[in-house]
């Protein structure tokens, strides 16, 4: 799938701790019977420096939690490498995996669910030490009490139960547990999103203090961008299993390069009222990760998607209609028809696959559709009438698809066998920030320009 040859995140002269290369995690759902897997993580590559905090942001369902879990080997990677200090942990198993686990731990999102509430706080924090046979039982207890101290709880809390603590305190207990084995690397999976706003800051400060004290390296998964901006050194923005943009936090927030980052950031209210940054809303929802778009993952919602030159100035609404139509057709193509439905259709009975009239009404009813577009739409409708969604889709693609949809540019031709083209990572700043978008290539205009023009 992924064709990039450039390592997207390579900065020489740094002390790299984690190197992720072309990592894919697919969920086979439906168990035994194969089926199309969910592509939760679909080819990501990045590095994490020792001692830094890398933020991982994106809408829910974008695969960021799966990515974090795969790094810790809670999920099995489908392909690719995860190298910790040079060792590919995806190949570890048994004893080696058990030994390695000491180095990488996780703080979980939900403090209600992350602590076994039948165990005392002491037992909870001590368990990792027990598992790894750390020193003697007495020393372990001592260490647990020290850890309670470290995370700002009382040493006497050893024999309390999770029930007796508030959400913030429970999260501190979870943090103490992750620290027990003195790991180098910690995945923080939305560690404060379940907490009251007043408590969030305390936990964030604690995490920062611990990082300084123990020289920890964090992967901070979040959807709250303001928290990320506060704590992270660098940020990776994820969409539909891909990293869309990755780079230093401040730069990325103040001057986002990738259209998806721009959309995401424009959704947070600007604290500064004098800001001139334009606001626009991201339309639609992310596509089903089981059937992601073929080219750029963001193509179905991108506000600055590259268009075929002949249709460049088509109305925004018409484009939206065409986009939705494509989704509808793809949906119909996937939907399996039962035998009964097929027979019913042969007999000329109405099926749940109605003709496109209604859909057209909804999409283009009150929009002025130019002549040439309308004729294509009519052809599409004809094909659908004959139950040939595939051909209809091909026709749509031939007319309206662009490089963003994975088609070789300008050719206009459509060849089933062609590997869809994906964007490449382009360096977008001197700091080495990378963005996954065609628009950074010479041939196209930069996203900012287009955004101003189309939505300004």
């Amino acid at each position, binding site marked *: 799938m992924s064709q990039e040859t450039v390592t997207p995140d390579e900065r020489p002269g740094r002390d790299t701790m984690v190197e992720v290369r072309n990592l894919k995690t697919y969920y086979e759902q439906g*168990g*035994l019977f194969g089926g199309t897997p969910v592509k939760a993580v679909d080819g990501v590559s990045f590095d994490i420096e020792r001692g830094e905090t890398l933020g991982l942001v994106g809408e829910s369902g974008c695969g960021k939690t799966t990515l974090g*879990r795969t790094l*810790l080997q*809670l999920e099995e990677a489908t392909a690719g490498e995860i190298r910790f200090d040079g060792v590919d942990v995806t190949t570890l198993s*048994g*004893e080696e*995996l*058990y*030994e390695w*686990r*000491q180095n*990488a*731990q*996780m703080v*979980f*999102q*939900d*403090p*209600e*669910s*992350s*602590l*076994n*509430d*039948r*165990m*005392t706080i002491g037992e909870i924090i001590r*368990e*990792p030490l027990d*598992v*790894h*046979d750390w020193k003697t039982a*007495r020393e372990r207890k001592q260490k647990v009490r020290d850890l309670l101290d470290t995370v*700002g709880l*009382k*040493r*006497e*809390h*050893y*024999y*309390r*139960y*999770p*029930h*007796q*603590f*508030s*959400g*913030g*305190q*429970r999260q501190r207990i*979870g943090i103490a547990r992750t620290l*027990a*084995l003195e790991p180098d690397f910690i995945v923080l999976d939305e560690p404060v*999103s*379940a*907490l*009251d706003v007043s*408590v969030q800051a305390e936990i964030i400060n604690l995490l920062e203090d611990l990082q300084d004290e123990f020289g920890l390296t964090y992967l901070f998964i979040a959807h709250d961008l303001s928290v990320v901006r506060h704590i992270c050194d660098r940020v990776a923005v994820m969409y539909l299993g891909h990293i869309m943009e990755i780079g230093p936090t401040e730069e990325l927030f103040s001057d986002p390069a990738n259209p998806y980052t721009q959309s995401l950031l424009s959704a947070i209210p600007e604290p500064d009222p004098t800001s001139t940054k334009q606001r626009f809303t991201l339309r639609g929802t992310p596509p089903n990760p089981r059937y992601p778009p073929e080219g750029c993952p963001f193509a179905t919602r991108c506000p600055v998607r590259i268009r075929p030159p002949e249709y460049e100035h088509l109305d925004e609404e018409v484009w939206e209609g065409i986009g939705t139509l494509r989704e509808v057709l793809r949906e119909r193509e996937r939907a399996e028809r039962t035998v009964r439905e097929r027979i019913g259709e042969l007999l000329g009975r109405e099926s749940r696959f109605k003709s496109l009239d209604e859909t057209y009404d909804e999409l283009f009813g009150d929009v002025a559709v130019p002549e040439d577009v309308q004729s294509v739409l009519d052809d599409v409708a004809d094909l659908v009438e004959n139950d040939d969604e595939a051909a209809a889709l091909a026709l749509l693609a031939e007319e309206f698809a662009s490089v963003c949809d994975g088609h070789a540019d300008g050719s206009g031709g459509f060849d089933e066998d062609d590997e869809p083209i994906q964007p490449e990572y382009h360096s977008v700043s001197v700091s080495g920030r990378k963005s996954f978008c065609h628009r950074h290539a010479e041939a196209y205009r930069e996203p900012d320009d287009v955004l101003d023009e189309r939505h300004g």
Partner: protein
Amino acid sequence: MSEVSGPTTDEANGPADSGVDRSLRERIRSNPRPALLWAAGALFLVALEFGRLLDGVLVFGQAIVFVIEGFASLPPYIGGNVEGVVAGVAGDTPGLLVGALAHDGTLLAVMFVVATLLQGYLPVRLDDVLGREMSRRRRIYGERLALTAILGAVAFALIYTPVGSIVDTEVGAWVTGVGILSDLPTLTSRELIPNLGHRTPGGGWEGTFMGLSPAWAWAIRNVLVWIYAFVCLAWVWRGYNVYRTYYREADWTPRDDTVKRFRNHYWGMFGLIIVFAFVVLAAFAPAISPVPADANIYEPYNHEFEYLNDDGEIETVYQGRANLLSESDGQGTVGPMSYDDFDRWMPLGTTPDGESMTTNLAYGARTSLIIALSAVGFGALIAIMLSLLSAYYRGLLDIIVVFTSDTIISIPVLVLVMMLVVIFQQSEHWLAEPLDGGVLLAIILGFAYWPGMWRSIRGPSLQVAEEEWVDAAKTYGQTPRKIMRKHMAPYIMSYIMIYASLLLGGIIITVSALSFLGLGITEPTPEWGRLISDGRPYIGTDSYHVSTIAGIVIALVVLAFNALGDGIRDAIDPEADVDGGDAGATAGGGGG
């Protein structure tokens, strides 16, 4: 950060939270008084019934021997079969050789399974013993193998050397010793308060407790039994409280709330008391029976007793003969609270066979309890293990379990059980022998009911497998077995307890129904269902008491088990936490 909102934050309250780690023994040593007081009381209670306790130990020992013998018969069985097959193909000598190998191989395999189970409890670690570093996996397997070797050596020594017979003699001597000790008089023994005796021509009684009438002697002994039993219960409860107040490190645990909720649950408490009474009835059956079971039921023609006949003479008669003349079969009736013609006291009348109803009921409680408990225990074991494994591993295993349990569930339980019972009883399988089919029935019922139990805990176990603490345990490398035991099993335990107590009632009914149909427990082992069916023809006569009493007792016990299940459910129901307001969590949490 909000302060801990648990029940007590009072640092001066007991030894908890002192910040110093002390073992339980050290904690007791520093404040021995409450523990000693309680232990003295407990010792006194034990001493009162020491003989009966030893009796229990002996019975338990027999049960264990039975199980071990079952397993021990496996290697010879497999060895013999293999020998037969190979001898048929390749001649006698290779047959003998391969058979012996198969025998020893099976033996070692059994030992390895045992060693795997025991390995976690080893007092020393292999790397310490050998004095060198080894990886975890190698250490664990090394320990298992070493343990297998030791067990194997012991087994071989027992089988092939004179050590075996020495041990046998030794064990035999111990058993005899315990047997003699178990004859020590106890507070509630028949010897101390005898109620069997005969009327003297002078109008008094001979042989009974202080010359009282058998009815009074029996009543006194029974009152003692019930007082003793409830004092014991209270003392156990007191022990729990002593521990909680003086020695437990945590000053609050989630279980405290559960116990508290259960104590305020009257319906559940009612169930608990009746169930406890049922257990006491079973445990103290010999003391509660006015006539001992082996004399009255099992070997009535080996036991004689004296009575004052109508002619004013002391005459000797067999229990069996007396039974024949005391039948409650419509024609003659010995009703509740009366003496039969031989001056035997019958508090609940006689059965249609002339036996004592009370004796039958008490020993029948034993039968029902043993069958119900072992069936539920056996079924629950399968259900828990399969649900843990299938929830943890999912995939193919899950599908297989779903398929198997659905298949079993699709056959009506009674039909399935009847089918299996008939098959085993017809073939006179050795399993059908103990308890006149009781053990067989327990195994069959356990097999028939595990899919139901599995279903009742499937949801909870799938749910608990999704909890983040399970993932957390994986991230620090906890073994799957321990994850299932520590992080999953405790959560499904409560659900299985609810279902098990409901099921216990159901199984008692099923066993009764089978016995009623003549399929369950055969004569002479007493069983409630058979009492009902035996008494059924006379329900319209004076002898209506047989079916009626047995029916009422069954209904009451089943009801009580249901009440107990309800009580447990309400006590562990997390919803109740909210109302109780005791758990006091979430001061700043749970936002989303």
